[in-house]
């Protein structure tokens, strides 16, 4: 017997066809009786099999309903592959939202050829295996009325993919704020007010923002609007839908984030860091030795910057979650991981203000720390400590305690002394606050949680690398 029925509230519940339950390391989907035949029919199609084989769709398996306590007698139960580290759209850089949108449209186009459609089009239908998006909502597929020329999820696709990406690229609205504050994305009217006069008449603003805003103003109170009206023929309906989906694809590509984005933290290791090639090689060799010793299956790289050490871990077989506060550098990690096919999932997460739990009763989307709790064999905190302690004013002891909550076993951390040039750059006249901040102080602060495995100073720098192991096994 698995789980409790109460857990159903914590998953997905908006779809009347079913709900998702998280039960420890298993992902279960309860399907209501009137939708089981349709789901079974879809899962047995060549389309569904091909999508699962190509890793575009999550695998699903029907399991005995008796396995779940409290299930209604006529409900059916399915189990899905568990994505190791689920993430939410408000943690993605623009590149990942764009990739999730492309996957959604590709699936809608393929489904159309087989007589199916997607009944919703939200980024919450997509999770990431490393840098690769996977569609996880099998109940989203349904047989479409072959004469129906409309896609009911079109507006949702525009609100949750196209408009946030456009607003991010053209107005600099951060996706993190846009999508965490608005579950269902941006309305065309919101963008219309911000867009310039000329911009309103250029593509894709004309189709996505201006025309919808004008049309809505004229017909807002008309409930008859949504009454069904079929196309003249099956071929015509398919033709219209195929064109609509392809035009969405063009609009999505026109909103694609630029690859040459620049920020304070981009190209850091190449141009802005104080590491010489020799010193960087020393750091790399310490990380390599640590990886060879620990052989982690999972790594959290906190403060990953452009993911130099995330890639190093992924090349040695680890599944890496790389977090940083800067969406530009996180986007560049995604591009590289995708190009090199490395198992790195980059996320825009600030360790000092980690993603909170959100949604209905704060239970729809888990907090970052709830997902991270014990999820990683080793945590990297390289060139991060001084930012947390000085810029964010988080006590060192707190940082080391947090690392012990997240890591199952090891911590790889870089101690940056107040004499360090980068430390001095951010301390800005507050040196007196850090007069106690010595290597001895750091080692004493680590002691309650961590046992030293090895450490070394980086030649010529006021920086030390430490590999620690937990003193007590994680409960």
């Amino acid at each position, binding site marked *: 017997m698995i789980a409790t029925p109460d857990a159903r509230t914590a998953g997905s519940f908006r779809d009347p066809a079913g709900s998702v339950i998280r039960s420890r390391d298993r992902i279960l989907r309860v399907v209501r009786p009137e939708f089981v035949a349709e789901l079974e029919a879809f899962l047995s199609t060549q389309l569904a099999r091909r999508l699962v084989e190509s890793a575009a769709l999550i695998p699903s398996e029907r399991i005995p309903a008796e396995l779940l306590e409290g299930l209604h007698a006529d409900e059916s139960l399915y189990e899905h592959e568990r994505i190791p580290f689920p993430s939410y759209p408000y943690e993605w850089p623009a590149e990942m939202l764009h990739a999730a949108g492309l996957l959604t449209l590709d699936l809608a186009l393929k489904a159309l050829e087989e007589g199916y459609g997607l009944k919703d089009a939200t980024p919450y239908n997509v999770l990431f295996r490393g840098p690769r998006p996977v569609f996880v909502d099998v109940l989203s597929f349904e047989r479409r009325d072959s004469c129906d020329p*409309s896609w009911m999820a*079109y507006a*949702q696709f525009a609100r949750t993919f196209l408009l946030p990406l456009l607003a991010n690229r053209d107005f600099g609205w951060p996706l993190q704020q846009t999508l965490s504050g608005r579950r269902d994305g941006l309305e065309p009217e919101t963008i219309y007010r911000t867009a310039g006069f000329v911009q309103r008449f250029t593509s894709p603003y004309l189709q996505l923002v201006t*025309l919808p805003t004008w049309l809505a103003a004229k017909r807002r109170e008309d409930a008859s609007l*949504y009454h069904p009206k*079929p*196309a*003249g023929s099956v071929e015509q309906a398919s033709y219209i839908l195929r064109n*609509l989906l392809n035009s969405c694809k063009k609009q999505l590509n026109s909103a694609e984030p630029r690859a040459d984005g620049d920020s304070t933290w981009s190209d850091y290791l190449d141009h802005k860091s104080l590491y010489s090639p020799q010193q960087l090689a020393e750091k790399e060799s310490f990380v390599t030795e640590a990886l060879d010793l620990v052989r982690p299956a999972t790594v959290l790289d906190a403060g990953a910057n452009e993911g130099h050490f995330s890639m190093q871990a992924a090349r040695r077989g680890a599944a890496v979650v790389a977090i940083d506060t800067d969406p530009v550098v996180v986007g560049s990690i995604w591009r590289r991981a995708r190009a090199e096919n490395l198992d790195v999932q980059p996320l825009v997460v600030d360790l000092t203000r980690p993603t909170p739990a959100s949604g209905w009763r704060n239970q729809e989307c888990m907090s970052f720390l709830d997902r991270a709790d014990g999820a990683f064999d080793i945590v990297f905190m390289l060139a991060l400590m001084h930012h947390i302690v000085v810029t964010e004013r988080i006590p060192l002891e707190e940082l080391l305690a947090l690392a012990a909550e997240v890591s199952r076993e090891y911590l790889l951390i870089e101690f940056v002394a107040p004499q360090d040039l980068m430390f001095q750059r951010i301390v800005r006249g507050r040196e007196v606050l850090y007069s106690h901040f010595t290597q001895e102080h750091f080692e004493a602060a680590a002691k309650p949680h961590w046992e030293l495995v090895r450490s070394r100073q980086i030649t010529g720098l006021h920086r030390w690398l430490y590999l620690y192991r937990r003193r007590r096994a994680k409960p």
Partner: protein
Amino acid sequence: MSKPHRNPFSTFGSLTLVAIAILLASPSRLFGYADPGTGAFLYQAVYAACIGGVFYFRKFLGRIFRKRP
């Protein structure tokens, strides 16, 4: 028996009427639970009408230029 003669312009006229009818119509049934919006829904209706017209126009051209056996 010889094939009955078709006036391509009357075919085009009826197809145009269909296209105009679609232009005035709204898209069809409600599938999912996602909010279909108002402006975007109407935009889709206009889009369907235009592209639906293109569909019939292409068919019409296809009939004109199709080689007869």
